[in-house]
């Protein structure tokens, strides 16, 4: 039974996303010089405004569920492992690395153990087909000859199982470009929506239990409007999910007194 009510931290990213300074700065003079007409300049501004509004429709939802007290002592480490037993998906290696890097930075930076050293040192017990799928299997694993000793050597206290993926969920519009002797240009509007959805299950090897769950769901809409010059407004939900998840994980593991009854 969870000792704590789910703590939800929902962040809505309203039009805070700024257009890329280089493309935005370069676009207006290009449009003005090429089109020359007031009407076209206005239409360009309208498209720009629509694009900025559209890119503002980016949402991030981070949820945390804490089962037991956490805290981390000097010399204790964290390892992040990607769940690989699903046939359709697995958390991307660069995402796992991103979270690891983010966790190790800052004032509360944690010591992150190398994923490959950990899995190789404990081979075969953390291979996808053999690894424990739930914390109830931990005691049996730790009872196996040599496993508890090897885990102690690694200094790892928390295993973070990362599950999820980033995928494009929707898209539309059309954008066409043409080139001729007089010049080249594009016209149209293309957009797509990307969803980065991840869940991190934190296992405490010291207390042989699941300490909690943190999930991140970030949706971002990317837009490329084009009137002569295409202006890409690309949202990066995976990077946002990485940042959000790492921040929550750091708080989750470092701050000891988060339990409320």
């Amino acid at each position, binding site marked *: 039974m969870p000792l704590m009510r789910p703590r939800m931290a929902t962040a809505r990213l309203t039009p805070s996303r700024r257009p890329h300074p280089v493309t935005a700065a370069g676009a207006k003079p290009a449009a003005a010089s090429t089109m020359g007409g007031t009407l076209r300049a206005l239409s360009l501004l309208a498209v720009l405004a629509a694009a900025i509004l559209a890119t503002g429709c980016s949402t991030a939802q981070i949820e945390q569920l804490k089962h037991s007290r956490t805290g981390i002592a000097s010399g204790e480490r964290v390892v992040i492992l990607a769940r*690989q037993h699903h*046939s359709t998906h*697995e958390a*991307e*290696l660069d995402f796992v690395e991103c979270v690891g890097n983010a966790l190790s930075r800052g004032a509360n930076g944690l010591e992150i153990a190398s994923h490959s050293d950990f899995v*190789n*040192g*404990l*081979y*075969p*017990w953390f*291979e*996808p*087909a*053999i690894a424990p799928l739930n914390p109830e299997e931990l005691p049996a694993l730790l*009872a*196996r*000859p*040599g*496993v508890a000793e*090897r885990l102690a050597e690694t200094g790892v206290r928390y295993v973070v199982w990362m599950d999820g993926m980033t995928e494009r969920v929707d898209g539309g519009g059309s954008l066409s470009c043409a080139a001729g002797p007089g010049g080249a240009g594009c016209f149209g509007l293309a957009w797509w929506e990307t969803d980065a959805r991840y869940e991190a299950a934190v296992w405490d090897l010291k207390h042989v239990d699941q300490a909690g769950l943190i999930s991140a769901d970030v949706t971002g809409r990317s837009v490329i409007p084009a009137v002569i010059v295409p202006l890409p407004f690309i949202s990066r939900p995976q990077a946002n999910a990485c940042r959000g998840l790492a921040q929550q994980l750091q708080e989750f593991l470092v701050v000891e007194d988060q339990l409320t009854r």
Partner: protein
Amino acid sequence: MVRRRVDASPGGVVNLSSHPDVRNTGVPRVLSGRGLWLAAAVALLAGCASAARVEVASQFPTPLVEPLPVRAAVYYEDALRQFAHSETIPQHSQWEFELGQASLSLFRPLFGALFQQVETLERAPQPGEIPHVDLIIAPRLERFEFDIPRHRDSRFAEVWMQYRLFVYAPDGTPIAEWPVTGYGKSAASGTLPRAALHDAAVRAMREAGATISVRFASQPDVRNWLQENRHAPHAAQNGDG
């Protein structure tokens, strides 16, 4: 999957040193003007015709298992040592895999950890030739399949393989025959996902190795033999997984 052995043409190396058009400057005159275009076209065609080669090379970790109280001898047959697989994906690409050395890299530390004593045999033993061991093991790689992402929605290169372990008594009596499968997938990018296939093959081999190291002693025929010969493993040892 269709299996086909393809003899790859040699890698397009041309010795120009004796060519009359090669002057003392060392610059072949054939590589100018139209010749340059011809050479480029030939190189392009040669590139299209040759297979993408994946030589699986990896160091596999030693399993963390308690060794069975058994003296074993392992014979790696030539078919395993030199295992290669060639396959053409219709209208897409042609692939060649080499897994012989990787299989040896997988099995040597694995059997070294799984048994109390292990020796490697250089040739197939005759019945009764090595009476000082309890078991003789001969692994074979009998199936290998792979796939690459060919559709917009598919993201993974995949490898599936099946080893078969033949277990004999020193007098040649068969004790067990155990097919062990391994599967691996890896996120791929590009049209020739060589690195992803390599990664997927290593993962598949690791999975097969993990299965052997955890479940060898619990195979019914092996378990019966261990019990009959009083080699039964201790509690919580490998074999109960």
